[in-house]
């Protein structure tokens, strides 16, 4: 490394070299971390572990008995048990979390499907065959997302009350659709934009119809992006609390609502809370790691590739 750039002090940013020094040295410098890289690696690992501690502690505690969970100092090496999970699923209380989990799944999946049905054609009209002033339309979509939910929740609540849609999971799903649609349009446009124009032109010249073009040219390129968009929309719906709390009750309550009403504040409940948090976060963790490669592009609304 220093042979190529003699002026460079040993401690300076070595990573760029590994990337751009030309193929000759690339493999070698990657396999041969300098002292500085080791220091960065140690620091990064320490911080990563520090950030992961609450998650790891939550998982560990969920497998402890209530007595071991609430000790000071913490009983890290206490015996493991599934009791907390049995309790969460209503072993003694008889209150099952399943209805709320099913409600959450219903609202999230329903709204995600609806978002895709609305956002894919919209993104098509903003990217592949764009309407005039398509940037204005894009920014209109984005501006609706900038309006805080609290500013619209009262009229929605009053409407739901008069229309008899209160405590109805499908109505909540519709609200989640509007919550996610603007972001989905932005994400999807950025993914559809990656379809090479040459391929679209070629298929047009070959006389391929719209459906054939969509299936053979657009879909293969855009599919990972569509999947990532769906996963991110699913996460946002699954996480939502404010609308769910205001618009649902006993029948249509979602998992986050169930979770907030779950802590009694009496007796030992820490392991049970941790088990509940693990179960409810599992779908989000799966969806998030599945979308990991496209997560940044999606969350930055396509502004960052």
């Amino acid at each position, binding site marked *: 490394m220093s042979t190529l*750039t003699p002026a*460079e*002090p040993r401690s*300076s*940013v070595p*990573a*760029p*070299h590994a990337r*751009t020094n030309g193929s000759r040295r690339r493999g070698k410098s990657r396999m041969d971390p300098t002292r500085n*890289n*080791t220091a*960065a690696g140690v*620091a*990064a690992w320490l*911080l990563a*572990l520090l*950030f992961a501690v609450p998650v790891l502690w939550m998982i560990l505690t969920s497998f402890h008995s209530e007595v071991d969970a*609430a000790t*000071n*100092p913490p009983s890290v090496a206490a015996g493991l048990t599934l009791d907390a999970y049995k309790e969460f699923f209503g072993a003694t209380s008889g209150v099952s979390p399943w209805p709320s989990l099913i409600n959450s799944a219903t609202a999230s999946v329903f709204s995600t499907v609806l978002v895709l049905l*609305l956002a894919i054609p*919209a993104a098509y*009209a903003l*990217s*592949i065959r*764009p309407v005039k002033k398509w940037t204005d*339309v894009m920014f209109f979509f*984005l*501006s609706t997302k*900038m*309006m*805080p939910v*609290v500013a*619209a929740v*009262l*009229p929605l609540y*009053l*409407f739901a009350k008069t229309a008899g849609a209160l405590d109805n999971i499908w109505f909540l799903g519709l609200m989640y659709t*509007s919550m996610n649609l603007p972001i989905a349009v932005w994400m999807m446009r950025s993914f559809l*934009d990656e379809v090479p*124009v040459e391929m*679209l032109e070629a298929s047009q010249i070959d006389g391929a119809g719209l459906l054939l073009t969509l299936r053979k040219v657009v879909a293969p390129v855009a599919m990972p992006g569509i999947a990532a968009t769906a996963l991110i929309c699913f996460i946002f719906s699954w*996480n939502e609390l*404010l609308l769910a*709390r205001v618009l649902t009750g006993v029948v249509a309550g979602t998992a*986050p609502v169930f*979770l*907030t009403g779950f802590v009694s504040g009496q007796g030992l*409940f820490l392991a049970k*809370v941790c088990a*509940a*948090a693990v179960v*409810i*976060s599992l779908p*989000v963790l799966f969806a*998030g790691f599945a979308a990991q490669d496209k*997560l940044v592009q999606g*969350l930055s609304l396509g*502004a*960052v590739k």
Partner: protein
Amino acid sequence: MTTATARVSRHGSSTAKPSKNVRARERAVAWARRAPLLPALIFLIIVTQLPFVVTLIISFLNWNSLSPDKTGFAGFENYIQVLTDPYMLQAIITTIVETVSVVLISLLLGLGLALLLDKKFIGRGLARTLLIAPFLIVPVAAALIWKHAILNPVYGLINGTLTWVWSLFGSDTPPQPDLLSSAPLMAIIISLVWQWTPFMMLILLAGLQSRPMDTVEAAQMDGATPWAIFRHLTLPHLRQYLELGGLLGAIYIVQNFDATFVITSGGLGTANLPYAIYETFYYANEYGLASAAGVVVVIGTIIVATFALRTVFSLFKKEAAR
């Protein structure tokens, strides 16, 4: 790229002789282009714009659902109350403090982590995965974990660890801080920073990895110090990513409801505007006042959003020009 070809074809059709037939066909083509857009557009206008108009109307009404006979026009009374009522004023201040500190701290931490993760080291992928995890915990669950498992003064992990460390030195009087009651807003801020740092890190890491390396290399050849490279090359390049992360983060964090609801239930001066509005209409049934506060939030968000839009727009333009 797509836009360029579209423009070409659009120009091509508009240079044709504008006979009636052609114009009708053009209009049909324009509508065929617009058609896929309309369902999404109409749906959004109905579900987001109409309710806001209603909020705007209610904000000028005297309306408490518990005393419906007193309903009537209130003028700017609700707005005056929002801006003078101590509870609402406190909520405005809390919202600003909470949003600004969470955004700044998580941006700084995210920048540090991104700079570290930009280097190559053993197990980088796994470290990145561990760092993303906090963002993928359901916010309600994260708030519950922070409140009960980490910050609880009696059996929380922090005080438990303090007891353990102090006992190593033979002391049985370890410090046992109680953040939840002595600094509840800080407890909320810590849990939010924990959740949002990964988001900032991801955006900044993508920014770092899009840095043009030839200039950095040239600077290194010329003997520039790492600090000089960071200060004069990396930071200017990262600026728009820092802005993007900060502003997108601000838009989400202004709306924070879950952490406040779970950790303090808005007590001890920790109620931010979303929580205060929720309480005002859900428990106090003051519909007019809640709506006026909602409009105030929207105005605040519009101010922030104008900057956000400009940043997103500049990145967006750069990309569209590609």
